[in-house]
């Protein structure tokens, strides 16, 4: 017994080192296994508060660009409005808010990241504002990511630029489905994999979110085809997609909630296990 105590005392520093290293390695490995959520994230009161303060200061430096972006979006929406056919005689469509499929919440990115393999954003709204896990995040230009974790007042987002990101997407003109992923190399480009060989693809085609996504509404813009590659093993297309969003400068974003998501997932789980989000 005495010897055990002596051993513990002599090697106490080494044992402490092993303990701390073990804890941090467990955290690391946990974060790399896909379905487990991370033990430490920036969606907590301390880091959320700090990032919010930093962002409050930084926001003054790009007011002009934000104004321009808003004016641009307004112009786009106005052109949609004026170009609708025969607005006077169209029967008015009334959607009862209780039956609407999607709910939109407005938020702001207070921490952006794009320099690593797994990038997460932090938002200034959280559980108290109605944000839940796996809600879609998009900007006026297109898809940004989806919610990973929430705290009372903050939320973290898995960005499109994250190797764990998966999203069902399709080619707009012919509705061929694929999976949107990121290979971790270039912040301006994502990859659309598993597009069948019989699909007709040309450089410049628009990619939008697919109907099978339970997170995003259909036809949200993502990007355009930049380069067509063929996977020599599976013979599927692997397309490089130039993103509409500049992921390196994000500010105001929208969060969409699909009110039928739980129902769809329950139904799909009862039928087949699915992996695409």
């Amino acid at each position, binding site marked *: 017994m005495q010897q055990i105590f002596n051993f513990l005392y002599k090697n106490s*520093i080494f044992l402490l080192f092993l303990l701390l290293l073990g*804890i*941090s390695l467990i*955290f690391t490995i946990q974060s790399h296994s896909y379905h487990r959520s991370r033990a430490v994230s920036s969606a907590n009161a301390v880091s959320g508060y700090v990032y919010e303060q930093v962002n409050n200061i930084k926001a003054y430096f790009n007011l002009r660009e934000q104004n321009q972006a808003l004016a641009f979006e307004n112009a786009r929406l106005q052109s949609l409005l004026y170009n609708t056919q025969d607005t006077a005689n169209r029967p008015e469509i009334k959607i009862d808010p209780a039956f609407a499929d999607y709910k939109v919440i407005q938020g702001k990115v207070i921490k952006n990241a794009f320099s*690593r393999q797994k990038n*997460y954003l932090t938002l200034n709204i959280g559980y108290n504002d109605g944000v839940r896990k796996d809600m879609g995040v998009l900007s006026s230009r297109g898809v940004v990511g989806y919610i990973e974790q929430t705290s009372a007042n903050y939320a973290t987002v898995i960005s499109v630029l994250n190797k764990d990101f998966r999203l069902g997407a399709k080619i707009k003109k012919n509705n061929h489905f694929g999976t949107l992923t990121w290979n971790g190399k270039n912040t301006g480009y994502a990859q659309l994999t598993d597009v069948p060989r019989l699909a007709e693809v040309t450089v410049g085609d628009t990619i939008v979110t697919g109907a099978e996504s339970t997170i995003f509404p259909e036809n949200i813009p993502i990007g355009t085809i930049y380069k067509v590659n063929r996977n020599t093993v599976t013979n599927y297309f692997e397309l490089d997609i130039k993103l509409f969003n500049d992921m390196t400068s994000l500010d105001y974003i929208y969060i969409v909630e699909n009110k039928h998501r739980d129902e769809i997932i329950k139904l799909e789980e009862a039928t087949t296990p699915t992996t695409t989000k």
Partner: protein
Amino acid sequence: MNSTVLVNIFRFIGLLTLQVMVLNHINLFGFLNPYPYILFILLFPVNGNRAALLVSAFFLGLCVDMFLDTSGPHAAACVVLAYVRRNYFKLAFGVSFEYQTIKINDRLSPERFSFILMCIVTHHLILYLLEVFNLGLIFSTLLNALYTTIFTLIISLIVIYLIKPAKE
């Protein structure tokens, strides 16, 4: 509470704040961020309590992990660095380092430079290998670690010169 403890607590908070508020947002060439917060581990008193160093290094790394959403790699790299620091002292300053009064934040000598360099290389290698966690990307990982090492080294030397205590 003596002044060394206070200085180290102040250094912990100061370097963490600097790292989180300023240096994480540099993104040089789109992807490079220096990590000079490890200066806390380097500047910790040579004959200070090793257990205290290990624990504080762990929490320092964990805080940076929390802010960067990386969960783990920074804490692991910091703990390893805190543990091997003693061996690097031996390598850089000779076996009898304990009896000398080593001050890292002083005029830059070859010994000090090699010590700082070894520490940064160790930390960054572990950090990048754990963060990417993919042997298929080992080449780009090592390249990234190299670039960041250079960047961190430069920033660290600047920080050391800036916070060099005034001559008494």
